[in-house]
């Protein structure tokens, strides 16, 4: 349930139309409920299914849209010319040691640009708690990057 805002936000940025995004998100969660007991990594499963559902949606309704463009985050890295650094940051965000709720918080704030108060509403926490947790997570990610050999962030910024 806590993944719902995360997936809907992700769909909103990819589909554009809020109503269509909601329908697709519901579709993902209906399949999720059917297979709930057999799923081990819920997060990975949800994102994988989301991708499939979006592919199907575009192939049904907008066949002229280049589907690969919708998920082609990698393409941006080539334009920046720093693919390795980007992958490393993504890894740092993925692998920072935290609970599943904290990871959701991190994605909501860092990736989807949610305000602290809105993230607090979603996670059932206070604004202060969210702010504190996000600070800790940011610190953890930067430490992870240091451990991977990036001593000064100015190198990659």
């Amino acid at each position, binding site marked *: *349930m*806590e993944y*719902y*805002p995360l997936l*809907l*936000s*992700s769909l*909103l*940025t*990819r589909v554009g139309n*809020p109503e269509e995004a*909601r329908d697709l*998100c*519901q579709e993902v*969660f*209906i399949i999720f*409920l*059917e297979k*709930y007991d057999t799923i081990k990594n819920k997060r990975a499963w949800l994102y994988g299914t989301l991708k499939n559902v979006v592919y199907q949606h575009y192939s049904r309704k907008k066949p002229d849209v280049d589907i690969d463009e919708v998920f082609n*985050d990698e393409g*941006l*890295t080539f334009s*920046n010319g*720093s693919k390795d*650094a*980007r992958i490393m*940051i*993504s890894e740092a*965000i993925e692998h920072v040691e935290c*609970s599943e*709720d904290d990871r959701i918080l991190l994605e909501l704030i*860092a*990736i*989807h*640009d*949610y*305000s602290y108060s*809105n993230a607090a*509403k*979603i996670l*059932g926490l206070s604004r202060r708690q969210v702010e504190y947790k*996000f*600070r800790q997570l*940011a*610190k953890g*990610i*930067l430490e992870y990057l240091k451990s991977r050999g990036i001593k000064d*962030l100015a190198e*990659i*910024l």
Partner: protein
Amino acid sequence: MNDDIQRLRKLVDTYKLSRPVSPELQQYVIDSRTPDLRNILRRSGKYGLVSWFVIMIYMLFKKYGFHITMMQSKIIAGITAAAVASGSGAVIYRGAKYIIDASVRPPAKIDETIDRAEPGIENHTENILPDAPIEQKKAQEKQTIPVNKEMEDPGNEKPTESGKMEKVKKKKEPEHNVISDVPSL
């Protein structure tokens, strides 16, 4: 500490890792959670009181900082339901038993025995039923002796002509005239 946040934000922006959602859409996401959850449960055929109860327990625990899985939430819901069912069952059983006992129990009977009679009163035992029928009371009232009738007893007086006429008149008069207002013994 705030520097860490700023640097992370800068990194995310530089490498275009962010997929920002506008504040209006953020609110839209927050508002659509509950109706969408209801819709998902309905469409997957799991919409019901039990599933809502399980979700409520899950959310409640989460709110107070206890992270539990859905399975644990189901177990807690089951235990809670069993406790409530057994508790209410016990209350209903006790209530029904009390009502049955109250309806079957015979009416209370008070036995009053006077061991030593007061001077001038004969020894006797009375059975007083609390719900003595009204007819019985009326019958007791009828047994009263009209005191003024005894007073009117002529005794040794010799009946005269006018007196005879009066007696005939009195016989014709209704009976209630002879009943005394003096309370009976």
